[in-house]
C-alpha cells in the first residue's frame, strides 16, 4: 500500500480545512445529497461540484482540492446555499477554499478569476480607492503587451464614451485620488492581515 493510500481518508485534511478555511468547519456537516451540484448554474463548467469537493476533503485529497480551479468558478449566485438542506454556507466555503489555496500558492497559475482578484486587491490597497483607469489598463495588459494594445483598441469607443459622460478621468493615470489617512489605511490592512494569518495558520 502506498504512502498516499494510507494517508487517504484520514481526517488530517478535513481538520486542516476546519481550522484554516473560512467556514471550513461546515464541511463535515455535508450529507452528500448532491443538491448543490445539481443547483449550480455553471456546474457543467466545474471539474468538481461542491458535493465532490467536500467528499475529496474527507478523502484527504489535499493536493487535488487546493490545486483545483473548481472553487474559482463560483459566481456567488448563492443558489446552492439557499437550497442546501443542511444549510451549509457553500458559496462562502468555496471562496474560503480558493483564498486558502491562493495563500498557500497552490492555486492554478493564471486562473482568470484569481488574476483579476489579485489585480483588484493590489490596486485597492495602494491608495484605499480603486483606480478604475489603472485597474482596467492592468487587466488589458495582464496577458502581455501586444494583447494589451489589442484590448485597449477594442475598448476605445467605450473609453471615449465614458470620458464624454465624465465617468472616466484620464488624469487618474497619474496616480488618482486617495483616502485621507493613508498611513492609517496601511496600519489597518497590516493588522487585518495579521489577524487573518493567525486564523488561517500563516502566522510566522
Amino acid at each position: 500500500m502506498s504512502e498516499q493510500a494510507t494517508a487517504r481518508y484520514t481526517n488530517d485534511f478535513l481538520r486542516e480545512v476546519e481550522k484554516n478555511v473560512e467556514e471550513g468547519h461546515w464541511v463535515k456537516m455535508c450529507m452528500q445529497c448532491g443538491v448543490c451540484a445539481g443547483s449550480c448554474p455553471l456546474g457543467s463548467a466545474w471539474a468538481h461540484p461542491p458535493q465532490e469537493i467536500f467528499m475529496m476533503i474527507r478523502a484527504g485529497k489535499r493536493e487535488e482540492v487546493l490545486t483545483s480551479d473548481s472553487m474559482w468558478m463560483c459566481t456567488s449566485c448563492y443558489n446552492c446555499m439557499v437550497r442546501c438542506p443542511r444549510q451549509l454556507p457553500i458559496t462562502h466555503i468555496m471562496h474560503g477554499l480558493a483564498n486558502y489555496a491562493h495563500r498557500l500558492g497552490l492555486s492554478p497559475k493564471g486562473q482568470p478569476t484569481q488574476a483579476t482578484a489579485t489585480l483588484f486587491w493590489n490596486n485597492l490597497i495602494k491608495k484605499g480607492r480603486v483606480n478604475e483607469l489603472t485597474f482596467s489598463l492592468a487587466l488589458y495588459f495582464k496577458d502581455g503587451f501586444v494583447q494589451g494594445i489589442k484590448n485597449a483598441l477594442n475598448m476605445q469607443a467605450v473609453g471615449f464614451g465614458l470620458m464624454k459622460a465624465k465617468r472616466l478621468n484620464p488624469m487618474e493615470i497619474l496616480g488618482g485620488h486617495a483616502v485621507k489617512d493613508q498611513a492609517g489605511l496601511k496600519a489597518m490592512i497590516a493588522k487585518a492581515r495579521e489577524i487573518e494569518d493567525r486564523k488561517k495558520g500563516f502566522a510566522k
Partner: protein
Amino acid sequence: MAEMKTAAYICSGCGIGERVSTAQMAKIAQKEGKMALVREHACLCDESGVQTIKDDIEKEAVTHIVLAACSRRVKTEAFNFPTVAMARANIREGVIWSQPEDAEHAETTQEMADDYVRMGCAEVKKMKVPEGNPNRASNKRILVVGGGVSGMTSALEMAEAGYDTVLVEKSGALGGWAAELVKRVPSQQPYADPADTGVAELAAKVAAHPRIALHLNSTIAQTDGAPGRFSVSIAQESGATVTEEVGALIQATGFTPYDMMKLPELGAGKSPNVVDQLGLEKLVKAANGGAVKRPSDGGEVKRVVFIQCAGQRDESQETEGRHLPYCSGHCCATSIKQAMYFKDANPDIDTMVMYTDLRVPGTGEDFYRSGQQKGVTFTKGKTSSVEAAGNACKVSFKDLILNEDVAIEADLVVLATGMVANSGMNIDIPEEEVEKMEVKPISILNLNYRQGKDMPQLKSGFTDSHFICFPYETRRTGIYAAGPVRRPMDMTQAIEDATGAAMKAIQAVENASLGRAAHPRSGDLSYPIVRLEGCTQCKRCTVECPFGAIDEDEKRFPVFNESRCRRCGTCMGACPVRVISFENYSVDTVGMQIKSVDMPDEFSEKPRILILACENDAYPALDMAGLQRKAYSAFVRAIPVRCLGSVNTIWITDALNGGWDGVMMMGCKKGDDYQCHFVKGSEMASYRMSKVDDTLKQMGLETERVATYEVAITDIERVPQLINDYAEKIKEIGMSPMKGFA
C-alpha cells in the same frame, strides 16, 4: 328463543321518501317478505323511530327486524337492538345516493329499493341472535416469552394495568441483547449523545413486580388451548416441567445477530480486528472506560471503519442473494453511536462510517448530525473486501461519490450485520424437507395445533401480521408478536411495539371471557357452528382456516376452537357440504337473499348483477361512492360478506341458476403485501374462483359471468367505474339464458 315474529321498518327520511315509493316497499315487505308487522317512519333513527322499534320488541314480542333505511355501517348506536336479529336494507347509500335523481332513472331506482327490501326480509328470517361462544374461558393471566426489552416492557405494562403476568426467559438473566450494550441510541431530546440503556432498571422493576412471575432458564415445552384457556408447559433447567394456565401469550423472542462468519469477504474470521456491532460493544465494555485496544496485539486504535449493510439488503447477483435481503433499520444509528464511543473518548481517533444509503429515520437525523459535529466521517462507498494486513486491516472499497477504487488501512473494522428473527420453526416447510436439514429448526412456542408448532411467517422469517393496519395481530388468535421477531426494529420501536402487543393481549383475554371474537370482528358474539352429522371429514376447513382455529379429533372430524376463531367464515366458504354456519351469517342468510330478488325476464333488457363485497373494504367503498353521489348501474345488488373467503361457491351456482347475469366479487388485495383482514381470505376466494370456470362451462355460460376484483377502501372513484364497465360487458355478452327456471 320463543317463536319468530318478524317486523319491517321502512324509513322515508334523508330523501328516501321523495325518491322511491315507501308504500310500495312496505307492501313488498308484507306480501313477499311475509313480515308480520310493517311500519313506515319519516325518520327511523330519531327518538320516536327507535322507540317504535323498542316498543314492538317489548310489547309485540318482535324477534326479527328488517330496517330499510341507511347502510348497516351507519347509525349503529341508534339501531342497537342486541336482543333481536336484525337485517338492514341499504336504501340510502346503496340506492338513492348511488342513482341519478331524474325521471329516467326513477323506475330502476324503485326496483333496486324493492329488491333490497326483499333481500332484507329473506336474510332476517334465516338469522338468529348470536349467544356468544359457549366454550368461553376467563383466565386473564398473560404469558410473555422472552425477557429482552420487548418482553420486559410487555410484562411490565400488563402488570401495571392489573394483569398477572408470567415471563419466560431462556437464559439465566433478563435483558436480552440490550443488556450487552454499553449505551443506547438516544430516545430523548436533544438526540445528540449515546444514552444509558435503562435495561438494568427495567429488569429490576420486572423482577420485583408482585404481578410478574419469572421463569428464568426456561423454555416452552408445549402450548395448548385457546384464548382464555391456554395451558403452557414450561421446561426448566432442572428438567422439571411446570404448567402455567394463561389467557393469552406474547411472543417477544427478538432476534439473533446475523452470523458474521458468513462474511469472510469482509474479513470476518480472518482477523480478530474485524468484529460485528455486538462484538464492538463487548470490546468497549471490556475496556471498562479506558481506551479500546486493537484485539490482535493490544495496540492503539487510531482508525475505525464501520461497514454498513454487511450481509444485508443483499439482492446482488454475485452473492446470489445469499445474505439477508432486508434492511435491519437500526444499524446506521448504532454505528453512529459506536463511532461516538471513540470520538467522545478521544477526538483524534478517526472513525468512518461506510454506507450506501444512510438510513436514520425520525430523530435519528438529529443523531446523525450530532455524529458529524463530533467529527465522525461518512463515506458513501461499497466495500469489496477486508483483509488482514499485519496488525491492521486493509479495507478495499469503491467511493461512490468520487467514483474510484480505494484501499485504506484501519485498526478496527466493525460490520453492521442485521437482525434474524427468532420466530421458531417455519411451519410452511414440509416435514420431509425439515428432515433433510443439517440444523433442525427448534420450535419456540411448541403449539399443540394441527397447523404447526409456531406462528406462520410471511417472508424472511418474521412472523406474519397485517403490516399496515394491525401489526401486532398474528395468525394465532390470542398470541401476539412484539419486537424484532415481527420485523427488524430498534429499541425505541420495540418498546412501542411491546406496549401495543400488551394492549392487544389484554383485549384478547377480556373478549375471550365474554365469549366474543377478537380482532377484527372484535366483540362479535357469533361463532362457527358445525353440523357434524353432515361432515365428510374432507379437512378443507382445518386446512384453510388462516388462524389455525380448527383441530381434528381421532375420527378426523373438525374440532372448532371458537375462541381462536376470528369469525371470517373462510371455513364456511370452504365447506363443500355446507355444514358450517354462524347464527347470523350462513350459507342460507346470503343464499336466500340471492334467491329472493325479482328477476326480470330475458327480454327485459334489465340484467341483474350480484355483488359480493367484502365488508371491510369493498362495501365501505361502495357506501362512500354513494355518499359522494357517484352513480353506478342500477342493475347491481350488493351483499356484504365478512370476507371473500367466506363465499361458498354454492352462492355463485345458485345465482347463475337463478338467472343472475353476472357476479362481481370484491375483496382485498392478496399476496405478500396482502390487505385482507383475515390474511388468507381473499387468496382462498381467488383460488376457489379460478376453478369456477368449469362450472360455468358446464352450465353453458360465458366465463366472464363471474369476475373477481381487488378493491381497497380508498377505491371510491374506481368502484363505480368497475361496476359500470362490468355492466357494459354483460350487455355485450347478453342476458343469461338461465332465467325463469328457479
